[in-house]
């Protein structure tokens, strides 16, 4: 069912998008970067991005908050990694206690 070249390609785009996110890029910047550096059509990038958003809504919510607050380019990679680790506790504080 899965077309493996397509699947692996999409996976690669996925990975690239994640890298871009760690550079604190927004969708447009990501499209541009992948197009320039990896020859990936922007439409593909944006499509994968949108699908990632659907699957990872909470993450992207938190990510957009970071982008909104962060004067964009000064947000460090680490901050995004942190956010990735922690947004669950931000968005769903009730999830963090398990006993």
């Amino acid at each position, binding site marked *: 069912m899965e077309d493996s070249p397509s699947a692996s390609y999409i996976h690669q785009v996925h990975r690239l998008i994640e890298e871009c996110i760690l*550079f604190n890029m927004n969708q447009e910047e990501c499209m541009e970067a992948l197009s320039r*550096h990896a020859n990936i059509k922007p439409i593909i990038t944006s499509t994968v991005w949108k699908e990632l958003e659907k699957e990872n809504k909470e993450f992207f919510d938190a990510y957009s908050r970071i982008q909104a607050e962060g004067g964009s380019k000064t947000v460090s990679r680490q901050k995004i990694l942190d956010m990735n680790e922690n947004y669950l506790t931000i968005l769903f*504080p009730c999830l963090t*206690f398990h006993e």
Partner: protein
Amino acid sequence: MLAVSPLRSTTDGEQGEMESFSIGEDFADLSEGNLLESIDFDDLFMGINGDGDVLPDLEMDPEMLAEFSLSEESEIVSSVSVANNTSDNSNGNNTVTTEKQDEVIVTNFSSDSGSNSGSSGEEIASKNNESTHSVAVNPSPKESEKGRKSSTHSRNNPQGKRKVKVDWTPELHRRFVQAVEQLGVDKAVPSRILEIMGIDCLTRHNIASHLQKYRSHRKHLLAREAEAARWSQRKQFMGAASVGRGGGGAKREVNPWLAPTMGFPPMTPMHHFRPLHVWGHHTMDQSFVHMWPKHLPYTPSPAAWPPRTAPPPPPPDPLYWHQHQRAPDAPTPGTPCFPQPLTTTRFGSQTVPGIPPHHAMYQILDPGIGIPATQPPPRPLLDSHPSKESIDAAISDVLSKPWLPLPLGLKAPALDGVMGELQRQGIPKIPPSCA
């Protein structure tokens, strides 16, 4: 018990002493001269006053006093009196020591006035009066003072301990957390927390120790979560990788232990897998039980906590520690996740010699990645704009090493969705033949 006998002596203190003397016959099996040496006064009074004084200070802990039942006290008294009587028959000495004993007796027994020994206490008091009168004055204020306290303690706290055990119910804890959050976790001071909570039966000490545990728990929790998140990354990666690599990826086989190129060490928190794989769903409760094996008070009753099987827990209960979790900039959790991407990269790069540029990339972007600092500084590593070189390096790295894990571990997009959308956009298949 031997102890009871001297108290049964009614009026005559000396008779009491004689009685104790007779009791002492048991001790007399030892040579009289050795009796004193054989009796370790420190041990006798260890419970009272740990500084090793033979006779306890009157200012002793009321709870300690309360602990001393009549029988215990009598035991000590009788033993001491025995010792004294045996060792030194001079009246002066006996009087002195007896006096002090009587002080003790009076103090303690009076404080236990509620107990059955009340009458005996009076007897001893009378004995006291006979031997010396100076005693009567001194201990009385202290008696009464200790009497109040001791009686209170013996009522409420049969153990006679100083600290009242606090039962941290979820509701109580919730208020605690509210107070802490209000003050700010790092600035929360027990006295202020107490004020805010406004609960009478809590002492500052209770709050302080609870606060300590709370803070420690938070740190642990965030570290665990970071670890678990990494696990989900692995899992997703492995699933995707097997699809990409295997070619026949009809099903995703998640088997990190058999990862061919990934050399990451087996990580213990495997049970974090399933729960964190789906963002937003929480089934981590079972795994975190192990975090607090010793904190039994904080896991009151199993019924209070979400059932292990139900993925979405009832909201109030798991809100225990982290109900008011702070903002994303919590310093501690960033650390464990730090080395992970790099570590795995290293492992992965064993098969590909193209290490330097990759490491260079990481170094450029994040020199702190290998530093196990508890507080990762918020480095604006990218300055005003991510350099093209670093982006390029990162991208080419991804392209050249498809086995690398996802740095963020986001859930993969739905292939159908992507493909469908692309087809709508006029791209029938990917990778497209033309870039």
